[in-house]
């Protein structure tokens, strides 16, 4: 197990190289010149050139890239082009907010998804099953920004139960977390249902029944634990989509998180901020995947650990 974790941690290095390279190249390809944007409208040619020189943007691309990489491994993500703040500091202000949002969203994905999936699977093709699965289908098909606006309209504007936007109290977390977690919850619900239905037909469930166990013990002790194994993988995959989703949801609810920071930085061609943001988001993703895979192995010991 430790060997497995170490091996996975080693994979972080190529991830850093890959992500930075891709972001670096993309930012070079998109139209718009950082120096021009930064200098502001009506700035003279000389000012722009001076700025370019200061920022090192006139050096050859590979040189820019390698000096950036070298700095990363020393823990230096550079400075924002906009306000000259260290990128790492800017990220660290926003990362906890995004992590909090992601945490509550995944909580909703897991809890809501599991409950819905179990309700469906216990009585397949019943009224409750069909109802739950219809809602799940809706949850998968609705775009999250649309769902966000809809929820905001109903609960914040019409009913005035919850705040419209911002990030100050638990009440602020509710709508964004639901918006972000709903799609995943729907997928988890469907996965849980099909996985449960498969498990319930297995021989060992018949054995459990032959033992005289009560139906709820059979479902929660004998079936669910086996059914969860594939669900864990799905939750892990959802987390990737979730990080992407923060970009939209943070914009809709005006939350000052990492996702919105990246979007704003792309708009102003603040390359170090974009690179830093994407890099940190990728690292978070890698760590969560490692966590999920480790959990998966704990749950399913039959897998060869190597």
């Amino acid at each position, binding site marked *: 197990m430790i060997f497995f974790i170490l091996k996975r941690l080693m994979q972080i290095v190529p991830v850093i190289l890959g992500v930075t390279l891709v972001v670096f190249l993309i930012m070079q390809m998109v139209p718009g010149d950082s120096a021009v944007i930064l200098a502001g409208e009506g700035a003279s040619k000389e000012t722009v050139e001076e700025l370019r020189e200061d920022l090192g943007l006139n050096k050859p691309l590979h040189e820019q890239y390698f000096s950036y990489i070298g700095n990363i491994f020393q823990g230096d993500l550079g400075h924002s082009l906009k306000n000259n703040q260290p990128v790492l500091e800017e990220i660290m202000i926003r990362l906890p907010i995004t992590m909090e949002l992601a945490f509550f969203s995944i909580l909703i994905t897991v809890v809501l998804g599991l409950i819905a999936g179990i309700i469906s699977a216990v009585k397949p093709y019943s009224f409750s099953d069909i109802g739950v699965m219809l809602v799940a289908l809706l949850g998968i098909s609705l775009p999250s920004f649309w769902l966000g606006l809809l929820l905001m309209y109903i609960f914040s504007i019409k009913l005035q139960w919850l705040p419209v936007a911002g990030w100050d109290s638990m009440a602020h977390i509710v709508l964004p977390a639901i918006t972000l977690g709903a799609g995943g919850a729907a997928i988890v619900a469907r996965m849980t249902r099909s996985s449960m239905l498969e498990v319930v*037909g297995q021989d060992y469930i018949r*054995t459990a029944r*032959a*033992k*005289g*166990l009560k139906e709820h013990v059979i479902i929660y002790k004998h079936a669910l634990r*086996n059914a969860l*194994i594939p669900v864990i993988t799905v939750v892990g995959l959802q987390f990737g989509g979730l990080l992407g989703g923060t970009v939209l949801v943070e914009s809709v609810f005006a939350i000052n998180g990492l996702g919105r920071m990246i979007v704003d930085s792309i708009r102003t061609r603040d390359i170090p901020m974009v690179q830093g943001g994407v890099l940190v988001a990728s690292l978070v993703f890698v760590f969560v995947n490692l966590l999920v895979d480790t959990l998966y192995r704990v749950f399913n010991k039959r897998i060869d650990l190597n």
Partner: protein
Amino acid sequence: MSNDVVLEVKNLKTHFISSKGIAKAVDGVDFVLRKGETLGIVGESGCGKSMTSLSILRLIPSPPGKIVDGEVLLNGKNLVTMPNAELRKIRGNRISMIFQEPMTSLNPVIPVGEQIAEALRLHQGLSKKAAWAKSVEMIGLVGIPSPEKRAKQEPFQLSGGMRQRVMIAMALACTPEVLIADEPTTALDVTIQAQILEIMKDLQRKIGMGIIFITHDLGVVAEMCDQVAVMYAGQIVEHQNTAELFKNPLHPYTQGLIGSLPKLYEDQDELQIIEGTVPSPYDYPEGCRFAERCPFARSICSEKQPDLIQYDEESKVRCWKYTNEWQVSLTKELVTT
């Protein structure tokens, strides 16, 4: 052998109802099981052995399966009509089952010791600790070395033979009155099979339960069973004690089965194998279900279904050959030709 009946099955009918029609998997099965006795149920695959055994504890997959008629009496109480809560107190406690598939019949994510202990806590009200201790004891009793260690392991860490021993330990933990073993050794290799059978016999002597032993292997029947019921197409066609059955098989189907056994000390020119195929449970013929394959079949056989009749005090057979009607139809045919 004492004569008290533990389990009595009367006219049991389990049908599978689907868009394809009605499959009469079990179609009027009767037998009794006495205390401490082993009753073998033999027959080709698909003849309804498993569905008969699953019907006893109402474990058939439903839908599409349904017990449409009959009674299963445990010491006189009918399990077919019993409320679920009451039946649960019998399952795994007074009647236990062992299944054919040791690889898939244990829960893959629960330590085997716990899978035994949970039945003990449920039925005997043992504490967590006491149930675990008893569970370890049972694992030792079925001949698994270092039971403390094995009890904590999950099924994937055990061999097929060991898993089947765990199944036996689980089934016998609450000292049931009846053990139903559905082809318990079919999936195991021959040496392991012999060990498992030995353990079952040994524990039967200790616990004194009646065993319903399902198999398609007549060699295993000879070794294990006191009585034998031969099944064909959802029905019992012959019921005798084991020695008598091998010496004097009554039903042409049984004769065919025994004839197809390779005999060790006789020079045999060829293995006798019954020709033809089993009729579909969706569409049984009107007369005797074996008539099509039977070397003795006459016109009466395809016209009317024979009953399971008492041949002598101990034996029953479902065949026209042993009835008065047979003689009548024989003379009729002689007269007309």
